């Protein structure tokens, strides 16, 4: 939480010695608050004040990075309880867990499936983020073998899970060129785990049941020199997770002097649930309510896709709808005799339509009006996709020079516009398409120039 100029002023020496280059301590404080000066410019500032100012400047939830290169993921740095206040910024990492007691071949297969999973969603490719390897055997050599197999089959980040620091050490030795998340420091092993975290410059998850013991353990881990921490408060069920993760977020954002819980949380929705159906709903809760890493115990494309879509939705910036550039889009190399349809530039609308048209393999022109990122009906209701707007788009886009016919298909949802449009666009025939994009392929087959 940023401090005001006045709050900063109270922490300065108040001698007005001018060494910082400003006429008074207050003037300097104002510049600091506006981030136009560096605290280091004042030679006399006390250590306590320095610490207080630094902690006030730190993000309320620390940014944690794992992995490397294009596969790295960043979580944390969140500043809000509710996305509508500004936005949620760093999507939680979605990982899938394997255990070193599963058949090795099965693990190998699963890791590569997770690694290569990719689904198209409104023009974006969505992926899962990584693999958690858990030592269930307690055997260091075995764990190392599984970590090695995981590394061989994915470049995505790893989360290594073991209770015994010796086992963890064996696993860590197999990870090269990518930063894993170490899970976990507990009351009985934290010193050794903290050493490993420092040695490998890797973030460390801290596990304790309940917030109170967690705060204490985090404090010790932090004092031992580990900066990058991830929290596991031990709650697993639907009700407890919602409450505890909310408390942690509130503590991070609102309990100002105490940043001890200002870290992302790792969640394991498979541990309290009995089926993939339940696990997916709990993972859904974690996406909306404050998890930083979500470790799933199942992988099924039918569930991965909706979860990834949900994550994308919750983390879109509510301040700006996702848009595409208005204009003429050529699909499947259309010629002058091919059909012409119009829709809005709201990304979800555009891609629902464009994907259907493309899927038919039939050539077509798609005219995209500038509805300022609104969907068909929303745009219509807001006057951003009405007869006027559509007519202007047709007239100014230059589409009349590209097609030789004069037939324009409008979305079924705005069929009422057809009369008005025929008046405004003299010489054009308005065809009413289906209401839902799913039905576009059948409709397109009826095309006669």
């Amino acid at each position, binding site marked *: *939480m940023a401090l005001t100029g006045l709050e900063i002023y109270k922490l300065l020496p108040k001698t007005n010695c001018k060494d910082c280059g400003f006429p008074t301590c207050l003037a300097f404080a104002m510049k600091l608050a506006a981030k136009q000066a560096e605290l280091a410019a004042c030679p006399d500032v006390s250590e306590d004040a320095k610490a207080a100012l630094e902690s006030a400047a730190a993000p309320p939830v620390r940014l944690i990075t794992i992995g490397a290169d294009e596969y790295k993921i960043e979580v944390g740095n969140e500043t809000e309880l509710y996305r*509508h206040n500004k936005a949620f910024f760093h999507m939680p990492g979605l990982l899938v867990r394997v255990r070193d007691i599963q058949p090795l071949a099965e693990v190998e297969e699963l890791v590569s499936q997770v690694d290569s999973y990719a689904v198209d969603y409104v023009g974006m490719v969505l992926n899962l983020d990584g693999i958690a390897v858990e030592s269930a055997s307690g055997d260091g050599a075995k764990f190392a073998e599984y970590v090695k197999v995981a590394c061989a089959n994915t470049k995505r980040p790893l989360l290594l899970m073991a209770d015994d620091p010796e086992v963890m050490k064996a696993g860590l030795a197999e990870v090269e060129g990518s930063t894993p998340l170490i899970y976990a420091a507990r009351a009985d092993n934290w010193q050794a785990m903290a050493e490993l975290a420092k040695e490998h410059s890797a973030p460390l998850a801290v596990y304790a049941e309940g917030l109170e013991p967690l705060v204490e353990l985090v404090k010790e881990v932090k004092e031992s020199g580990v900066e990058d921490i991830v929290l596991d408060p031990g709650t697993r069920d639907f*009700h407890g997770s919602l*409450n505890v993760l909310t*408390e942690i977020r509130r503590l991070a954002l609102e*309990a100002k*002097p105490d940043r001890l819980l200002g870290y992302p949380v790792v969640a394991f929705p498979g541990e309290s649930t009995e089926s993939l159906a339940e696990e997916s709903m709990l993972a859904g809760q974690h996406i909306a309510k404050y998890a930083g890493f979500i470790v799933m115990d199942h992988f099924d494309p039918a569930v991965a896709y*909706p979860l990834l*879509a949900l994550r994308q939705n919750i983390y879109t910036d*509510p301040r700006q709808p996702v848009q595409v550039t208005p204009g003429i889009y050529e699909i499947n190399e259309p010629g002058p005799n091919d059909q012409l349809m119009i829709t809005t530039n709201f990304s979800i609308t555009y891609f629902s339509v464009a994907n259907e048209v493309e899927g038919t393999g039939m050539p077509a022109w798609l005219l995209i009006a500038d509805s300022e990122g609104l969907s068909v009906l929303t745009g219509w209701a807001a006057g951003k996709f009405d007869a006027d707007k559509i007519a202007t788009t047709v007239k100014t886009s230059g589409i009349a020079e590209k097609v030789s016919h004069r037939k324009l298909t409008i979305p079924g949802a705005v069929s009422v516009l057809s009369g008005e449009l025929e008046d405004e666009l003299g010489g054009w025939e308005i065809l009413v398409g289906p209401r839902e994009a799913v039905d576009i392929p059948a409709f397109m087959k009826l095309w006669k120039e």
Partner: protein
Amino acid sequence: MRHHPLQYCGCVAIGDTEGDKTNLEGVAVMPVAVETPKKEWTGQVREVVLGATEAEGGTRSKTVTVGGESTLPFLDFEAPMPNPPRIAVEIQDRKPSDWSSVLLTVWGQVLDDPAAWAKAVEELDVDLLVLKINLTDADGNETTAEQARASVRKVLDATGLPLIVFGPGQTELDIDLLVAVAEEAAGERVVLGVCDDKNYKTIVAAALAHGHLVNGRTAMDVNLAKQLNILISDMGLPLDRVIMDPTTAALGYGVEYGYSAMERLRLAALQGDGMTQQPMLVTPGEEAWRMKEAKVGEDVPQAWGDWEERAITWETLTATTLIHSGADIVVLRHPESVRRVEDLISRLWNKGD
């Protein structure tokens, strides 16, 4: 086991509700206790009772109470939640012509008979039933008031569940049909929907005349929702007979707008804005099953996985998200989704002790 409030070393609390009152001296001092910042909400969602038993002048076998929250969903470290969210299952007055074949297959025979369909819903052990009246009958003719009346009668006779009736969603026709429905179901405390800024005068008058409730729908906007509640209440319908429907969209198709509109409405209610304190109804079933991901099984990317599982997950995850942002009634379509969301609610409800 969780302990609340969270305190250790037993002294000063460092969090405060405003979050900006912490004095600067406090910065340098080592924290000695931890207590989660609790909000001091001044408002509470109104409780609304759906349905009327014989004792109350109706024929329902039970009534269902929704609302009453004085904090965000399930945050009972802050305040208890008096009533869990409820599931309503949607049936229609005739076999739907645009439903996914996954739905048509699972409901099978009962689709042709609203009474049988209503009974099948009651067997799922849910709390509420939604009857949606179509624009046209099975022959393609515009549905008449008499037909709507007959459908409602059949459904009321077939089950004891409190009922919500939705018109086809076309202002003129909705008015005709819902007025007839209100008359037919007099005294049953049925929820009449969709009641919006165009038809509310007639729908509210019908609710007043025959002892019903209304479901006020607005387009994902706090002020519009509030405005409609004011209009409805100005006509003399007590606010404990008003449900609000802030509209939702499906997962992948704008669910985040609905999610945030609901969260904002609920926060406004808790902050004491009396005209936003209505329980919320949303229709994740209808929205999710309209989407390609739920409707189509062939010629879709391999990454979409098994059709039925994906479709059901689309519906359940949409519902899950909305339940976490304050939905009091979720209207669903697939029996398996009903089972899953019931399970979700009972787990959220279960305090684990």
